[in-house]
C-alpha cells in the first residue's frame, strides 16, 4: 500500500479525568473517502480537533503528508493541506460571506509553493465557492443574516477555500433537506474526484452510505470498527453500540 | 538579617495573606467561576472602606460590624451590576471587549467620585482593638492585622461550605462547568449567576472594612489591589477557594519579606510582578497541571 496521507497513531485525549479519546489508530490513504460515525459524545469532533491542532493531544502522534504534525499550531497544519469545518459553525461575524471565504484564500491558498492570488482571482474564487454551496445571492450578507443551514454551507465552503489535500467535514449536513444533502454529497464526491481526500463525519446514515468508501466507528473514545461500509454497519458490536444507547 | 526580623516578617505576611484572601474571594467567584472579568472589584472594596469610615466617624460603630449590616446593600448592588452586565454584554453574545471596558469604566468612575466627595486624604477608622498588640517574646501580633485575618478566613470558610454543601452553592459551581447539567437541576443559569455575582460583590463590603482597619485608605488605593487580586486568583487556580487562600498567604509573605528587606518603594512591583510571572509561567495556577 502507498504511504498514507494521514496517519494517526495511538492518539489519546482527556478532559480532566474524562477519557475522550483512547488510543486511536487510523490511516487514511490519498484520495480516499472515509466516513467517521459514532454515537453522540463518542469523540469524533475531539479526534478532528486533535488532528487539526485545535486541541493538543496528550499521547500519540499525527503524521500528515509524510510530516509529523505534533506541536504544530493549527494554522500551520492548514497550510500543509488539512482543512476542516466546525460542527457548530464559527463564521467571522463582522465579515460578509464573501469575506469569510476570502480569509483562507488570503492566508492559505499560497502556502504550498504557490503564489498569492491576485485581487481579481481572489474575488472570482470567492464567488465561485459561494456559488458551489448555493450562497451566491448572499455573498454580501453578514453571517447573522444567514439561516442555520446556510451557516453550515458557509462553514463547508470556507474549509474548501483553503484548497486542502484533506478535507474534514464535521456534520456539515445536519438540518439540511434531503435534496440539499444529496447536493452536498455530490459536491464532496466531485471534490474527491479532483484528488481531495475527504473525511466525513455524519449522523445521516443515507449520506454516509452514499459517500463512504470506508467506514470507521468510534464509541466512547475507542475505535471499534474500520472497514467497508456494508460490512461495518452489519458488525454486531456497532449495532450493539447504536442500539444500546 | 536577623532571624527575629525574618520570623516577624513571615507572621506579618501570613496575617496580610489572610486578609488578601477576603479581598480575592469575590474575584475568585466572579472571574474564576462565572468568567466575568470584574476588574472593578477593588473599587467596590474601597466603597466598602468608605462606608465603614463614614459610619465609624458619625456613629462610632465598629467598621466590621458596619460591613455586616450593609452586606445586603452590597448584595443588591451586585445584582444590579450583573443585570446591567447581562443585558448589555452577555446576552448580546461574545463581546468581551466592551464588557472589560464597562468594568474599567466602573472602576474609574467610582474612584473619581470618591475623590470628588472625599478628596485624596487618607481616611482611617477608630476601634478599640486597632491599637492593641500581642507580644510573644520577640513576636508581635498586631490586632489590627489579626482580626481582619481571622474574620476573613472565617468568611472564606463559610463561603466554601456554602458552595459545596447547599443546592444553590453547587449550582453556582456547576455554572462554570456545565450549563446543561444546571438545566437538568432545573435551575435558571441567569438567576444562579446573578446570585453568585451578588455574593461576590457582597464580600467586597467586608473586605473593605478589613482594609480600612489594616491601613488608612484613599480612593486610588483600590488600583493597587487589582494586581494582587488577580495574581492571587490566577495563582490559586481561579475557582478554588482553598487555592485562593494558599496563594493569598504566599503573596502576603512575599510582599512582607520584600517590604522588610528591600524597602517599601518596591512593594507595588511585587504583586504585579508576581501576576506577570504567574500569567507567563503558571497560567493554570499553582496547583494546576
Amino acid at each position, binding site marked *: 500500500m502507498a504511504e498514507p496521507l494521514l496517519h494517526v497513531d495511538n492518539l489519546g485525549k482527556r478532559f480532566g479525568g474524562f477519557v475522550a479519546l483512547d488510543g486511536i489508530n487510523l490511516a487514511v490513504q490519498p484520495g480516499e473517502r472515509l466516513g467517521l460515525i459514532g454515537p453522540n459524545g463518542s469523540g469524533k469532533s475531539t479526534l478532528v480537533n486533535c488532528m487539526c491542532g485545535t486541541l493538543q493531544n496528550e499521547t500519540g502522534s499525527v503524521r500528515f503528508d509524510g510530516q509529523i504534525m505534533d506541536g504544530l499550531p493549527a494554522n500551520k497544519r492548514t497550510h500543509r493541506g488539512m482543512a476542516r469545518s466546525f460542527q457548530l459553525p*464559527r463564521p467571522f461575524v*463582522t*465579515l460578509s460571506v464573501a469575506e469569510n471565504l476570502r*480569509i483562507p484564500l488570503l492566508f492559505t491558498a499560497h502556502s504550498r509553493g504557490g503564489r498569492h492570488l491576485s485581487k481579481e482571482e481572489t474575488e472570482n474564487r470567492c464567488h465561485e465557492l459561494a456559488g458551489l454551496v448555493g450562497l451566491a445571492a448572499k455573498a454580501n450578507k*453578514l453571517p447573522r443574516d444567514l439561516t442555520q443551514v446556510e451557516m453550515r454551507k458557509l462553514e463547508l465552503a470556507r474549509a474548501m477555500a483553503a484548497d486542502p489535500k484533506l478535507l474534514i467535514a464535521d456534520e456539515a449536513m445536519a438540518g439540511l433537506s434531503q435534496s440539499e444533502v444529496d447536493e452536498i454529497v455530490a459536491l464532496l464526491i466531485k471534490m474527491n474526484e479532483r484528488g481531495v481526500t475527504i473525511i466525513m463525519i455524519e449522523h445521516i446514515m443515507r449520506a454516509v452510505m452514499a459517500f463512504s468508501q470506508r467506514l470507521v466507528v468510534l464509541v466512547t473514545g475507542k475505535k471499534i470498527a474500520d472497514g467497508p461500509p456494508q460490512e461495518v454497519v452489519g458488525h454486531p458490536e456497532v449495532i450493539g453500540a447504536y442500539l444500546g444507547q | 538579617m536577623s532571624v527575629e526580623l525574618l520570623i516577624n516578617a513571615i507572621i506579618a505576611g501570613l496575617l496580610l495573606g489572610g486578609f488578601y484572601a477576603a479581598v480575592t474571594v469575590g474575584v475568585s467567584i466572579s472571574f474564576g467561576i462565572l468568567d466575568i472579568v470584574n476588574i472593578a472589584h477593588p473599587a467596590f472594596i474601597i466603597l466598602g472602606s468608605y462606608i465603614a469610615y463614614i459610619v465609624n466617624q458619625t456613629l462610632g460603630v465598629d467598621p466590621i460590624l458596619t460591613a455586616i449590616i450593609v452586606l445586603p446593600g452590597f448584595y443588591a448592588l451586585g445584582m444590579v451590576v450583573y443585570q446591567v452586565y447581562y443585558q*448589555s454584554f452577555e446576552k*448580546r453574545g461574545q463581546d468581551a*471587549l466592551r464588557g472589560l471596558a464597562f468594568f474599567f469604566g466602573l472602576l474609574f468612575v467610582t474612584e473619581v467620585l470618591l475623590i470628588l466627595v472625599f478628596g485624596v486624604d487618607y481616611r482611617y477608622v477608630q476601634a478599640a482593638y486597632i491599637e492593641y498588640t500581642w507580644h510573644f517574646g520577640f513576636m508581635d501580633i498586631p490586632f489590627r492585622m489579626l482580626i481582619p485575618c481571622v474574620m476573613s478566613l472565617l468568611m472564606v470558610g463559610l463561603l466554601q461550605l456554602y458552595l459545596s454543601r447547599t443546592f444553590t452553592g453547587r449550582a453556582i459551581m456547576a455554572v462554570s462547568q456545565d450549563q446543561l447539567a444546571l438545566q437538568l437541576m432545573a435551575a435558571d443559569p441567569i438567576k444562579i449567576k446573578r446570585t453568585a455575582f451578588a455574593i461576590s460583590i457582597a464580600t467586597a463590603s467586608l473586605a473593605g472594612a478589613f482594609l480600612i482597619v489594616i491601613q488608612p485608605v484613599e480612593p486610588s488605593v483600590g488600583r493597587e489591589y487589582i494586581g494582587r487580586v*488577580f495574581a492571587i486568583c490566577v495563582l490559586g487556580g481561579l475557582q478554588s477557594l482553598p487555592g485562593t487562600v494558599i496563594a493569598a498567604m504566599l503573596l502576603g509573605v512575599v510582599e512582607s519579606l520584600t517590604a522588610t528587606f528591600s524597602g517599601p518603594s518596591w512593594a507595588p512591583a511585587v504583586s504585579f510582578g508576581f501576576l506577570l510571572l504567574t500569567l507567563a509561567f503558571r497560567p493554570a495556577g499553582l496547583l494546576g497541571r
Partner: protein
Amino acid sequence: MRAFYFYVSSILVGGLFFAFARWLGNDYLFFAGYTVLQFVVLATAWNILGGYCGYVNFGSAAFFAMGAYSSVALHKLAAGVDRYFPESLVGFAKLILPLNIPTLIIFGGIVSGLVGLGTGYLTLRLRGAFFAIATLALAVVLQTLIVNWDFVGGSRGAYIIRPGEVPILGSYIQYLFLVMLVLAVVALAAARIIEQSRLGYGFATIRDDEMAAEACGVPTLKLKLIATTMSGALMGMAGAPFPYYIGYLEPSSAFGLAYAVNSIAMPMIGGTTSWVGPLVGALLLGIIQQIATVTISSAINLLIVGLLLVGFVIVAPKGIIGLVQDFMRERASDKGQPTWRSRLAIFANMRPGAR
C-alpha cells in the same frame, strides 16, 4: 484616489489650524492642540490592538511613559556626555547628542514596541482577559521601576530644559505641535493601510473567532504580536516628545490614569471598527477636556470621560461612527442614488463587514 484625499485633507485641516493659531498669536492653542493630537495618536494606537484584534490594553499609560522616559534617558545622557562615555567616544557622542525630536520619537517607538512585543509574547497565548489584566500589571511594574531609577529622576522627576527657539518657526511649542500633527497623520495612515490590507482581515478574524481563524490558516499569534508591537510603538512615539512639552516629567504624570482611560474611552466612544472612530472620539473628548480643564476641575473632567465610556459601551456599542452609519444607511436605502451621506459613508471607510 481615496488615499490621496485622505492625505490632502488631513494636511489641509492641520495646516489651517496651524495658520489660524499663529494668526491669533495664541500659544495656548498650540498647547491645547498638541494634547488633542497626542490623544489622536494614542487612541489610534490603542484601536489597532483593541478595535481591530479585540484585545484590551489597559496599560496605554505605560507605553506612553516608556516613550517619554526613553527621551528623558537620552536627554540625561546628552547632558552628561563627559561622565557617561569613555574618553575615546566622547567626541562622537557630542556629535550626535542631544538628539532631535524626530529621532527621539523613533527611539521611543522602538522601546515601547519592544515592551509591547515582550508583554504580548508572555501573555498572548492565554485568553484575552489575561492579556488585559497583564497590561494593568505592566503599568504598575514599569512605574515602580522608573520610580526607583535615579538616572531618570526617580520619584522626584526630571527637569527637561527645552530650547527656547527653533529656526524658521520661532516658538518651540509650534514646532512640537507640527511634530505631533505629522505623527497623528502617520498613525491614522498606518491604521488606514492596515484596515485595507491582508493584515487587517487577519486582525478581524482574531477579533471574531481565533479558533476559526487558525483553522483558516491565519497565524494568530504572529498577527497578535505584530498588533501589540505596532500599537505599543505608536504609543511610545506619542510619549517621546512629552518631556519637552511638559518641561518637568515625574512618574505620576507620565503614567497618569488619564492616558489609560482616554485611550480606551476615545475609540470606544468614537467607534472601533475603522480609523475614523478613534479620530472622532479623540477630537471630541480631547477638545471637551481642553475646554473643561479651563472651566472645571480635572477630576470632574475625568468623571465625564468615565461616565461617557460606561454609557457608550452600554447604549451605543458601535460608537458615534456606528450611530452615524446606521442613520446614513437608513437614508441611503431610501433612494438608489448615492447621496452625500452615502459618499461620506464610503469615505468613512465603511467596509461591507464593518458595522
